[in-house]
Structures are given as C-alpha cells and as structure tokens.
C-alpha cells in the first residue's frame, strides 16, 4: 500500500526553483533515506511532506489524503506525520514529560493520565525514563534528540520524517539516536530520513534517493546505489562522502 505519494512536486523560492518535478511513491513500512549535496533541496523536499513549506505545484498524498488540497485540514494531517529536526527544537520551558504530552492533550484531548502513561512508555523505549522531569537544557544532544523522537511518536504518527537527526550531535551520541531509529524501522514505521549517515542508509533503509539540483537523480536499494552508482553525479557525491 502506498503511504506517501508525491506527484510532480515543484517548489520555488521566488524565481529560484529548488525542487523541479519530483515524483516518488513510498510504501507503508518502507524506510527511505534521502542523500545529496548541501543545498540540493533535501530539507525542502522533506518539509513539503508535512506542508511546513507550501508547494508551488504538484501533489502530496499521504495515506490517501491530498495534503496540498485547499480544503485539507493541515493540523489534522500533521498529527499523523511526525517530524524530527536537526536542531531538536524541544520546548525549553517545558520538562521532558511536558514536551511529550502537550500535543496529544491539546490536539486530541487525551487525558493527562493517559498521555503521561503513554509518554513514560515512549521514554522507556528511547532509554530516558529517568529524565522525565528534567528540562531540555539539562540534557545532552543525543538525549534531546531521543526526547524529540519520543515527542513525535506520542502522536502515534503513520509516517516519521527525519531531517539530519544526527548532524548536530557529537560523534559519541550518534549511535544511541540511530539505534532508536533502527528499532523504529524494525517495528514497521514508514520513515523518510534525510541523512549523511551512509552506514545507517546502507544498513537500515529499503531505498535511497539521491537528490541533485532539485531532481531525484538516482534511486535504488542501498546495496546497489552505494556499490554500483550509475549516475555520474551520484558517483562524484559518493566518492566525496564515503
């Protein structure tokens, strides 16, 4: 079953066309990694999938719903599409637990007791149960990012989007976060991950998209794409990062 269907997506900032006609179908439970040079449009692509960026042309359909339609209830749709940011973006004035229970309580009217119970289970899952009452400022980068993942999961999303979730982390913190993401992938979450972690892409993803100059220049299963890239630009990019 198709979970994300992107049809002829275009995105311009003024005259500058960042995404030029991107079409891709992502199946339920599929884990797709997006790679490409800096400025190639990876983040923009990801942010079009939950309409943090308004698209210029085309369609984005998530779980059968056209999210770009005028009548689409974007707040409702975003509840189903979790997003994890490079800079974590935790709410610094709220404790870890409050960060996680806020959205379920305010958007779905979940009772506090239930939201808390669910949040504690998620914290256990990301290995941070004992940090429930800490403030984000008291956590390391890796811990912050795991809380951010738990916060997104608390909405029980159908899809998780990750924008370079480990790029702002010290090297020794990267492993913990990737571990949580790997577990999520194994549980069958549909994931789109913009990443520079080629090891993760190779090991965990079902498919890798190489974005170059606003188009998907090449896509393939990771084994093929990494060891046998066909496009010259992919070869050049990989030779730099691998």
């Amino acid at each position, binding site marked *: 079953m198709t979970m994300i269907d992107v049809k002829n997506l275009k995105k311009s900032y003024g005259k500058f066309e960042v995404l030029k006609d991107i079409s891709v179908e992502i199946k339920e439970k599929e884990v797709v990694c997006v790679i490409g040079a800096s400025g190639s449009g990876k983040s923009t692509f990801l942010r079009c999938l939950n309409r943090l960026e308004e698209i210029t042309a085309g369609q984005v359909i998530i779980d059968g719903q056209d999210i770009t339609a005028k009548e689409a209830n974007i707040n409702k749709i975003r*509840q189903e599409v979790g997003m994890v940011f490079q*800079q974590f973006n935790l*709410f610094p004035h709220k404790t870890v637990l409050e960060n996680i229970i806020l*959205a379920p309580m*305010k958007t779905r009217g979940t009772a506090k007791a239930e939201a808390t119970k669910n949040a504690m289970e998620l914290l256990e899952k990301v290995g941070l149960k004992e940090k429930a009452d800490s403030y984000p400022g008291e956590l390391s980068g890796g811990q912050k990012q795991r809380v951010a993942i738990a916060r997104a999961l608390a*909405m029980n999303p159908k899809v998780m989007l990750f924008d370079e979730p480990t790029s702002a982390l010290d090297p020794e913190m990267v492993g913990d976060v990737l571990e949580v993401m790997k577990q999520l992938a194994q549980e069958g979450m549909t994931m789109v991950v913009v990443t520079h972690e080629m090891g993760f892409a190779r090991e965990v993803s079902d498919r890798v998209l190489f974005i170059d100059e606003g188009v998907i220049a090449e896509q393939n299963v990771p084994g093929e794409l990494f060891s046998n890239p066909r496009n010259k630009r992919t070869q050049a990019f990989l030779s730099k990062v691998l």
Partner: protein
Amino acid sequence: MNALPYLLEGLKVTIYIFVIAIILGFIIGLIMALLRLSPIRALNWIAKIFIDAIRGTPILVQLFFFYFGLNSLEFISFDRTTAGIITVAINAGAYFAEIIRAGIQSMDKGQTEAARSLGLTSAQNMRYIILPQAFRRMLPTFTNQAIISLKDTSLLSVIGIADLTQQGQIAIAATFKAFEIWLVVGIMYFLLIYLLSLLSNFLERRFELR
C-alpha cells in the same frame, strides 16, 4: 498643619490609576502585537497606525485630546480619572505592542515549526510555546515600560487628577514647605518604582530562563 495625609491620599490615587492603566495597557499591547503580526493586511495596518500615532505624539497632547478634545464632542463625557487612565493605558499599550512584537519575532523559528509539525494550531503555538517563552525574556523590558508609565501618571495632575503630584502642590499651597514636600513626593515615587523592580526580580527568578 500635617501634609502627610494629603500625600498618602495622592499616593493611593497614583497607585490606583497606575495599576488599572498598566493592566489595560498590557492587554492593549498584546492585542496590537498580535494584530501587527497577523497575516491579514487590514488588521496589520490598524495596529501599525495605532502604534505609530501614539508613539509619534507627546503624551500630554494625548491627555488633552482624550480629556478636552473628546469631551468637547457632545456624545462623549469622560471624567478626569477615566481620561487619565485611558491616556496612560493607551500610551503603555503602544510601547508594549512593540516590545511584544519584537519578542515574538526574536523567537527561534524551530519552536513554531516543531509545534506546528505536531499538529498544534497557530493559536495553540502562540499560547503554549511562543508567548510563555517570549514573555519571560521580555520581563526586564516590561518592567522598564511599567516604570515609565508610572512616571507618566504624574502628568495627569495637569487636568486636576488628585494624584501624588497634584496633592503635593495642594499641600505646598497650604504649608509653603516646597522643599520638604517635593522631597517626600520624590521619595514616595522612588519607593514605588523600587517595589516594581523588586517584583520584577521576583518574577524573573520565579520563571527562571531555561
């Protein structure tokens, strides 16, 4: 004769006018800041005109306008105190609006993006994420404006409001002790302002920056 009862009477009026005006001013400021940031052009303009008009004219002219100007129209009649409160409140409101607008705009965009990506509406984002953080950061600037507004209330004596400054003049007319009385009036204002900064410090500690 003893001037102190006069001055205490005036102090009460000053505090009364200040408290009401600053609360109203804050509400006006918050509303104007939100209008100023609203995506609707017309609302934007209303707020901009209001803010510019108030910031671009002397408070004494505003006071005369609200008291003598508006009262000269047949269908409006403000008493002195109302006109005084309105003047100080609107004046504070215009400055609060700019402080709050700048505070909201200085927030990291990632906060809004995280909130919206979770499905929170833009109003919920304002209420639970942006304003609580922005207000905490703005506290010192709020205090500054409150102190300015408190000092502004002394201008109200010119339309005959029996505030601390006016009562000082009355006491001097009765006792001829200008030096002592203006000194005491000054000390009373100073103590009020000192109390305000204590309150502000307390709030800053209570809502510690994270």
